[in-house]
């Protein structure tokens, strides 16, 4: 058992009776003056998960991360990291982070920076080990100010690895890196996550989330709008929307449109989201009285919009993977976003 201060009550490395999540956010809100940056987030991240916060700029990713790290205090709700207040988890080296920019002193060398930060923790990995794991062993004596953006980012990564944290948080870690730097950085991260560390990273690149996360949490305007595996979220973003005008009782029979992932009815208009829009169009034109047919591609941005725009419009509630759900503004699961399986 672990008491609320994180001190094991019966010796080192004792497991708990129940599973303690790495992160637990309950009804978390954060305002900056009139700006509601985070409008009620509930999220549980289990140990060993690699989770991506995906969303456009201003979605609330960084603000949420700041609250998980204790850099910001929520206006409402509750944040726990390994069952403790974030600051406690930070001071025990349970959680570390690689921030977007800054955070390094230009007049220290790489090795000095690692040494300095290592002295601040009670226990750390050997200070020779982390630079090589982060791929900066060869520039140990270089001044931080003379390092490239990618090298500085790997230094931040090395610093984050020092206390061997249970949870590593990366806030848009590859912003401003070129393709090569990005690939190198992620391969270092991937190597690390294979050791079972819990990782939460924010990104606005779908590819990054797809390639490195087990689970993607879609954020938009301060809310979680979808939460599921990469495949599920990609399916939300992939595919096309077939829009048609269709009146009368026929809408009821539309549950059986072949190839449809979800169907929305708005008055006389129906919106069918599908990966195979050809099948849907063919069916609508051949077997129903649908007219004014329009097919549009959906990108991630559309998916965000679709997921946030119309809380009233109910998607057709068909089968759905458990965690991939759409939320209404009150933060409750309102309607299921139907995501087919095996769509990749």
């Amino acid at each position, binding site marked *: 058992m*672990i008491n609320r201060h*994180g*001190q*094991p009550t019966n010796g*080192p*490395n*004792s*497991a*708990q009776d129940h*599973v*303690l*999540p790495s992160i637990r956010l309950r009804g978390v809100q954060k305002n900056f003056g009139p700006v509601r940056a985070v409008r009620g987030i509930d999220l549980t991240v*289990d*140990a*060993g998960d690699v989770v991506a916060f995906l969303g456009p700029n201003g979605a609330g990713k960084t603000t949420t991360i*700041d609250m998980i*790290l*204790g*850099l*910001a205090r929520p206006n409402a709700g509750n944040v726990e990291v*390994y069952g403790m207040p974030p600051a406690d988890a*930070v*001071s*025990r*080296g*349970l959680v*570390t*982070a690689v*921030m977007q*920019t*800054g*955070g*390094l*002193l*230009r*007049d*220290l060398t790489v090795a*000095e920076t690692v*040494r*300095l*930060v290592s*002295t*601040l*923790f*009670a*226990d750390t990995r050997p200070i020779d080990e982390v630079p090589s794991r982060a791929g900066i062993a060869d520039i140990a004596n270089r001044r931080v100010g003379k390092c490239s953006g990618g090298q500085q980012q790997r230094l*931040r990564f090395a*610093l984050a690895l020092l206390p061997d944290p*249970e949870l590593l948080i990366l806030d848009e870690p590859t912003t401003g890196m070129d393709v090569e730097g990005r690939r190198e950085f992620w391969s270092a991260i991937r190597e690390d996550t294979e050791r*079972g560390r819990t990782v939460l990273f924010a990104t606005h690149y779908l590819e990054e989330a797809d390639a490195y996360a087990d689970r993607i949490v879609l954020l938009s305007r301060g809310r979680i709008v979808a939460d599921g595996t990469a495949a599920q979220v990609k399916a939300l973003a992939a595919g096309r929307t077939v829009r048609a005008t269709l009146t009368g009782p026929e809408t009821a029979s539309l549950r059986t449109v072949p190839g449809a992932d979800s169907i929305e009815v708005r008055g006389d208009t129906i919106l069918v989201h599908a990966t195979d829009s050809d099948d849907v169009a063919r069916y609508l034109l051949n077997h129903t009285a649908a007219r004014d047919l329009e097919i549009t591609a959906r990108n991630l941005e559309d998916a965000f919009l679709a997921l946030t725009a119309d809380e009233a419009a109910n998607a057709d509630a068909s089968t759905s993977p458990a965690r991939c759900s759409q939320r209404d503004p009150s933060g409750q699961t309102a309607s299921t976003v139907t995501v087919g399986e095996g769509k990749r």
Partner: protein
Amino acid sequence: MTTMIVPVRRIPPLGGFNLTFLALEIRRLLRNSRTVIFTLVLPVVFFLIFGAHQSYSSERAGSGNVEAFIMISMAVYGAMLGTTATGAMVSVERAQGWSRQLRLTPLKPVAYIVIKVLTATLVGLASIAAVYLAGAITGAHMPVSVWVETALIAWIGSLVFAAFGLFMGYLLPSENVMQILGPVLALLAFLGGLFIPLDVLGEPFRTLARFTPMYGLNQLVHAPLMHDALSFGAVINVVLWAAVFIAGAAWRFRRDTARV
């Protein structure tokens, strides 16, 4: 999901304070050539120009000579520059996001301030030592006990300006705070009587000077040499300005750590 095991995690003692950190802070300061010039070179140069080998240098002043008097003034000036510059480093660190990075470590903000103050202590001492060494070589003369007493007063008094530097470092969101503070300190040193005797100033200026932050320390630090009685006004001056700077630094520091 693997079984959740949280290994024992310790919190570092002393809020993260340690001597390696202190040593690296000093190394950073020494790497900054501007700081070195202003705190170690400039006061010595001023002393050599205005204090040593002048016609008045060997004239009597209290229980020593005028050169010793000027040496003390320059040592105080250098120490104040050094402690202010050390405190003001927080502005650079905030601008570079270092303070934020430190908040992702177990380092307690108070331990960080202690490191800064200790660094300032050592910088102030180095500055005083440099000027006193130059004085000893070039013929400053006073009793041994006065060397020790004045050095101690200069050293402890200059720490007030570490608080001033911290206050300004938190207040001014600039990477080059010392570019602003350097001239300010020079003006304060002038008004405090470190550069010229205040007697040469007109009465309004002399009155104004009494209320400036370096005036009190300047009076106190020369007292052992001049055998002046302990001036109540000077003590009040030092205590009040120390209170203002420490309160200001604490206020901005609290705001900074409660920020975001």
